[in-house]
């Protein structure tokens, strides 16, 4: 085993609760949406952590916490040893150069009134001290080339580009300050298959060239498998299973991971007969009122009385050496 490098990002017990209030004049807090409820993980330089889970499980909220676009309720997050959650604005701004984000929706995340050159060069305005010496235009052109766009496109507006091209613009902007970590929140979900592959390949190439670490959020488990070194599976604000991509995909031990993997449609009609889909009944419960004990128990086919009273910790289980938050963790291979 090679020596593990120090994590570039370490998240400890991150929590984000959105208050639910009633009353317009004097709002009273009557509860909280527990969007992120105690999430911990490490991200090492140059690696990709895939974050998966159903809609509403807290993936985007976690991303926004790390970017400090939302203020954390509790927890700590160390970027290169500095606690992002406790930092003052000035220090935060400087540190934030090291971590950038690419948004899901290439249609709404770019300002339609700015030219591509302005969009990609904007980080230099916000962080003048990080601007490249010399000509800003040249830097922008280089960034465009790096993401496979023609430098002649610099003076056009976002609406003149296709979804895939807009996503490239977003990536170019994220690269401007030479970050070490990029959080990609569903970067290819809005794209067509044929274009999606181009963007995934671009992200992989940039990672190789620049040594970037990615947090790659997606609901498409096939794309995540493709790009990730390690995986974290989220359910109702918590990580329920985590490990290397092979551990989570080939040797899942948490019933939720197993169900999620089994439901992924397989682009092979001959697999129909072989496939066994684990049918989850019902929907994800409201994060304002998560079930007691194990949060998955309302949909879990293995639930026992203990699951309602005792919350299973995310810890290593006897069946396979990777953490799983299930009292009855068992190996069940879903992918052939």
């Amino acid at each position, binding site marked *: 085993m090679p020596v593990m490098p120090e994590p570039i990002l370490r998240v400890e017990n991150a929590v984000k609760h*959105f208050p*639910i209030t009633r009353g317009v004049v004097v709002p009273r807090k009557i509860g909280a*949406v527990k969007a992120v409820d105690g999430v911990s993980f490490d991200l090492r330089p140059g690696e990709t952590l895939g974050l998966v889970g*159903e*809609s*509403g499980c807290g993936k*985007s909220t976690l991303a*926004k916490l790390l*970017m400090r*676009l939302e203020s954390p309720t509790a927890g700590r997050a160390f970027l290169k040893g500095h606690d992002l959650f406790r930092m003052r604005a000035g220090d935060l701004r400087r540190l934030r150069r090291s971590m950038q*984000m690419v*948004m*899901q*929706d290439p*249609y*709404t*995340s770019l*300002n*339609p009134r700015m030219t591509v050159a302005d969009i990609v060069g904007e980080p230099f305005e916000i962080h003048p001290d990080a601007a490249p010496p010399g000509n800003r235009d040249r830097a922008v052109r280089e960034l465009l080339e790096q993401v496979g766009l023609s430098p002649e496109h610099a003076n056009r507006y976002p609406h003149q580009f*296709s979804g895939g091209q807009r996503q490239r613009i977003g990536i170019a902007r994220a690269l401007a300050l030479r970050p070490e970590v990029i959080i990609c929140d*569903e970067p290819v*979900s*809005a794209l*067509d*298959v*044929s*274009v*999606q*592959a*181009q963007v*995934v*390949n671009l992200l*992989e190439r940039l990672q190789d060239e620049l040594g970037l670490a990615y947090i790659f959020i997606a*609901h*498409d*488990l*096939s*794309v995540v*498998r*493709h790009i990730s070194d390690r995986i974290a599976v989220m359910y109702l604000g918590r990580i329920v299973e985590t490990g290397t991509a092979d551990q989570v995909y080939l040797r899942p031990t948490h019933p939720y991971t197993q*169900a*999620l993997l089994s*439901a*992924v*449609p*397989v*682009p*092979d*009609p*001959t697999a*129909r007969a072989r496939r066994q*889909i684990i*049918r989850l009944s*019902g*929907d994800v419960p*409201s*994060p*304002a009122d998560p079930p007691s004990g194990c949060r998955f128990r309302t949909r879990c086919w293995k639930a026992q009385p203990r699951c309602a009273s005792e919350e299973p910790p995310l810890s290593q289980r006897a069946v396979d050496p990777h953490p799983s938050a299930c009292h009855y963790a068992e190996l069940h291979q879903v*992918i*052939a």
Partner: protein
Amino acid sequence: MTYQYPSHGQGQGYGQGSGQGQSYGHGYPDSPTAPVVAGWNDDRTGWDTPTAAWSTPPTRARVERPRSGEHLLDVRDLWIEFATRDGVARVVNGVSFHVDPGETLAILGESGSGKSVTAQAVLGILDTPPAVVRSGQALFSGEDLLTMTPERRRQVRGQEIAMVFQDALSALNPVYPVGWQITEALRSRRGVSKAEARRRAVEMMDLVQIPAAAQRIDDYPHQFSGGMRQRVMIAMALAMRPKVLIADEPTTALDVTVQAQIMDLLATLRAELEMALILITHDLGVVADVADRITVMYAGRVVEHADVHTLYGAPAHPYTRGLLASVPRLERRGQGLHSISGTPPNPVAIPAGCAFHPRCPYAQQMCRMTEPTLLRIGRLDRASACHFPPEALDARHA
């Protein structure tokens, strides 16, 4: 850092999650789009045949039985264009397909390839203008949906052919209880009494496996999750027991676990009710799971059609080959996904010759000049719109 300009596209702002539909704590959007469930809201002309229970299918005396050799729904050489600021957008260019009872046909294509416009034209819910149906036929049991009287078409729509849409939230009316909406057509067209309608609503909700149907019949759409709303819309589409159900990206907005439930449900209902199902999707995984036959569209044209096993096992058209190669697969990891270069064409400027030629690794001089026709391959119900048969392509690539 983050810009949110709601005017662009239907994508939700970043803070809303990824547009996946589930919206805990967000409640209902301020201005829901008008309900667009086909055939539901515009026809109150009444139906004079009082029908008994759901279990006895209504007779459809006015529609002739298909003669042998005739398909239940047979779309032939459909051409549709839009006048836009940038010129004429040719979005459907000679599309043909057919479907028979008990069969699932998938129409597969990337966004903008003309799938929804085709479906809307068949159903008669395409706004003309701005759209212009240049030519073509859509024969339902031999009767042309495109030329029949509006009155007749309203009868067929909802009754014989129904549709479910991707976005159930905007397709359902926010101000009426779901049970009321499910039975709207039964009441207005079949004159079913209120009490009977309630009973049927529960029956339909049971059919689409909504738990505790009797208790939920008076709930409003926003009180249901995305998956449950999709079930409500399916119940609504099936209330009149149509012979053809067109499902336009019915699971695109849903999570995989819920998607699996809905696809299951559609497959079960298709078999139970002996419907023909037309499944419109861009997802090669979903198609492989449920379709019998597949029609692949590119730039408003059918580029290939085949049975599902042939299409996946031996794709003929270079576009289909490229698509299949670019899908990331769960069981595979490693560097470099295959990708098709370039992007799908703008319908106001479709490349001359073969529309796929700028992206095609096999393209030759003639591909830039001459448009290939959809030619049958072998004896099978299989065709490809490429100048070169599959063996020739294989030989060239080897």
